[in-house]
């Protein structure tokens, strides 16, 4: 007989908190990142086809859409890095108090935006 019990985490029932938002976003960005890393692997592998075949990719990456993807990727990586550091701190037994989980959750959300800006400015040699 098929098991009709709900699987965890049961996101439709529980009231949303900062922690649940960060947790779900961690999973979503994890999936986005592996799709992005796969595209990066394809991008790096296409270099073997030579300069002529690379011009289309270069045109795409220089478009507004290409810039949006690069910025989106920087944010997704930033979120994953900060969220993973938060998880590692929790694995060591720190930050389980309700107020601290809210603060660290907000730090991950806003910190990822700041880190994205920092990565972009340093990466493009703007600072």
């Amino acid at each position, binding site marked *: 007989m*098929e*098991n009709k019990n709900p*699987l*965890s*985490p049961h996101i439709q029932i529980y009231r949303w908190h900062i922690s649940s938002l960060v947790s779900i976003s961690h*999973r979503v960005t*994890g*999936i986005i*990142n*592996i799709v992005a*890393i*796969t595209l*990066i*692997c394809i991008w*790096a*592998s296409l*270099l*073997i086809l030579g*300069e002529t075949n*690379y*011009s289309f990719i*270069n045109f795409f*990456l*220089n478009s507004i859409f*290409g*810039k949006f993807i*690069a910025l989106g*990727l*920087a944010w997704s*990586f*930033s979120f*994953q*890095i900060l969220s*993973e*550091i938060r*998880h*590692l701190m929790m*694995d060591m037994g720190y930050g389980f108090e309700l107020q601290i989980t809210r603060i660290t959750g907000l730090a991950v959300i806003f910190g990822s935006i700041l880190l994205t800006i920092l*990565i*972009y400015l*340093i*990466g*493009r*040699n703007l600072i």
Partner: protein
Amino acid sequence: MNLATKKWIFMKISSVILVPLMLWFIFNFISIYNQNYLEVLSFFTNSANKFLFSFFIVFAYFYSSLSISEVFEDYIQNEKIKNAANKALYIFAIIMPLITIIVIFNLKL
């Protein structure tokens, strides 16, 4: 030690290694993604970058396959579908970085 504990330990070790590699890659990616062919090629043919990029993709696929299998555990109820999805995921996580590393090490400036 049961399988879930082993998986958790592997995830934690790989995440500690992955965090600095992700930072290293994203800074470099932002600086080269829209450069011309020779600039991008010189990045991937540099020995240090080649090794770091290879480590980065190996650990990224290793960590992601473990964490995505957790997502399958939470959201796929049918055991057959879950096992098939996990097998496909693990095969993909081995083949993709392997092919990329072979290609990267055959690139010449």
